[in-house]
């Protein structure tokens, strides 16, 4: 069940999207997020759907694999949707018991669910098609300017890449600890928030202890391999723009312009 979380895990196939420069993908994702929040009309939705579908098709990552990652946030979606649905004032569309639901509420709930779903799928395409190391390199280079105001860009990027590498290991570990505690009679399906929280202690404490132990080991191993920050480091896979990256930039800007146009027109 925990193994179903696909968020952030690289999916190794060879596709156009995989081959793009990570900087392009970062920029594209940023633009995509902005477009999502600009879109507030069916036409905008339609445009984003076409864009998303095209990118998914080009990435060769199975759609079912992406959707599996959504399962974890279904509850979040439902709650966020419900809040918008019931708490938005306006002309009542219909009334359930004593709570009335407004047209504005329906609209904002739909918008909310649509945006969140597209946001998760869209951003996960980036991590699905980019190895953590490429992502790190991309971030590091894109944010190079921040170095001048003493933001430790390299260190932040390195931390991110290591975190991504350890996600599957920690998921597996959680699964193991859960089973071990179940064998000692733990019940993770207890009712009630307090009980649920209490039941998590035997899971979370060992997990944190283990994460710290791993962090300690890893720091030592990195030091032993001469890691001493970003200074004087060379790159095994330096980033170079190619033709296809230029094409992608143009495509991204085109989509961006189109979505602004759609927002103004409708």
């Amino acid at each position: 069940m925990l193994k179903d979380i696909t968020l952030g895990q690289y999916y190794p196939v060879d596709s156009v999207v995989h081959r793009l420069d990570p900087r392009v993908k970062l920029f594209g994702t940023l633009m995509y997020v902005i477009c999502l929040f600009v879109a507030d009309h069916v036409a905008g939705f339609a445009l984003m759907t076409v864009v998303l579908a095209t990118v998914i098709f080009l990435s060769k990552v199975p759609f079912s694999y992406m959707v599996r990652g959504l399962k974890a946030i279904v509850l979040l979606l439902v709650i966020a949707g419900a809040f918008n649905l019931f708490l938005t004032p306006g002309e009542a569309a219909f009334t359930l018991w004593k709570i009335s639901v407004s047209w504005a509420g329906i609209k904002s709930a739909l918008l909310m669910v649509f945006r969140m779903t597209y946001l998760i799928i869209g951003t996960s395409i980036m991590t699905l098609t980019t190895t953590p190391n490429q992502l790190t390199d991309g971030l590091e280079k894109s944010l190079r300017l921040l170095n001048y105001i003493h933001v430790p860009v390299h260190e932040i990027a390195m931390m991110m890449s290591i975190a991504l590498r350890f996600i599957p290991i920690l998921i597996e570990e959680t699964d193991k600890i859960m089973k071990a505690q179940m064998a000692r009679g733990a019940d993770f399906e207890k009712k009630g928030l307090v009980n649920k929280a209490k039941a998590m202690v035997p899971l979370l404490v060992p997990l944190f202890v283990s994460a710290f132990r791993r962090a300690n080991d890893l720091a030592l191993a990195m030091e032993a391999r001469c890691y001493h920050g970003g200074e004087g480091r060379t790159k095994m896979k330096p980033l170079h723009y190619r033709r296809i990256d230029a094409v992608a930039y143009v495509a991204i800007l085109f989509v961006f312009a189109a979505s602004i146009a759609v927002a103004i027109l409708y």
Partner: protein
Amino acid sequence: MGIIEAKDLVHEYYRRDEEGNVESIETAVDHVNLSVQPGQFISILGHNGSGKSTLAKHINALLLPTEGTLLVDGKDTSVEANELSIRKNAGMVFQNPDNQIIASVVEEDVGFGPENIGVPTEEIWTRVEKALKSVGMWEYRTHSPNRLSGGQKQRVAIAGVMAMEPKCIILDEPTAMLDPDGRKEVIKTAHELNRTKGVTIILITHYMEEVVDSDYVYVMEKGSVVMKGTPREIFSQVDALKQYRLDVPQVTLLADELRKAGMDIPAGILTREELLEALCH
């Protein structure tokens, strides 16, 4: 002069209370003398807490001596300016295979060390290829380390060290978390690198059967070297080994028992072929 020269090496751990006052001092390494020649395959035996891992971390300058000196390739580890070149020359492989692989793709992990020491991009690629081929993991270069077996992960870790072109590799209990297949794989790889590339190997372990083919063996107990010699010299002292709670291989144990029962069998039997020979001569 040897590639590793330890002279009266002492390491003390200070345990401090909440105010930072020293509560107790534990001597983990106690006046150890060690001399390793280039190209040798050395093993250090001892059970947990014998100080063998603390000693190993000194060779890579991860720990510094409290007393005494340690020279790696002629350089004093306690001089800070030597740190990077010592770590480059004396690579280290650790026990837990998961906790020393940094990248999510095998080849990127092997490239991590060369990147850190500023090797130009093109040379990184040739080094990565050479290193992965030397441990037989070339065909896994684009795999995720998470899908590899324990033994394969350790071989990737060894390749990561090899890519820095070290003169010596310290393997700190590299097999403790592996199954028998993985253990064989790793020990075989270490011997191959020693034989074909002339890399000096220091193997730290608590499994006696892994040290049989070493050139020289040190046994540690409570921070001191208590036995040293060729494997045969060490294995002929079965009673002493038992006293240090080491795991004497069955054949050696059996040969010793038979000898004590009055049979004419030489001391220090290492393999079953030797025992068979001694019985049937």
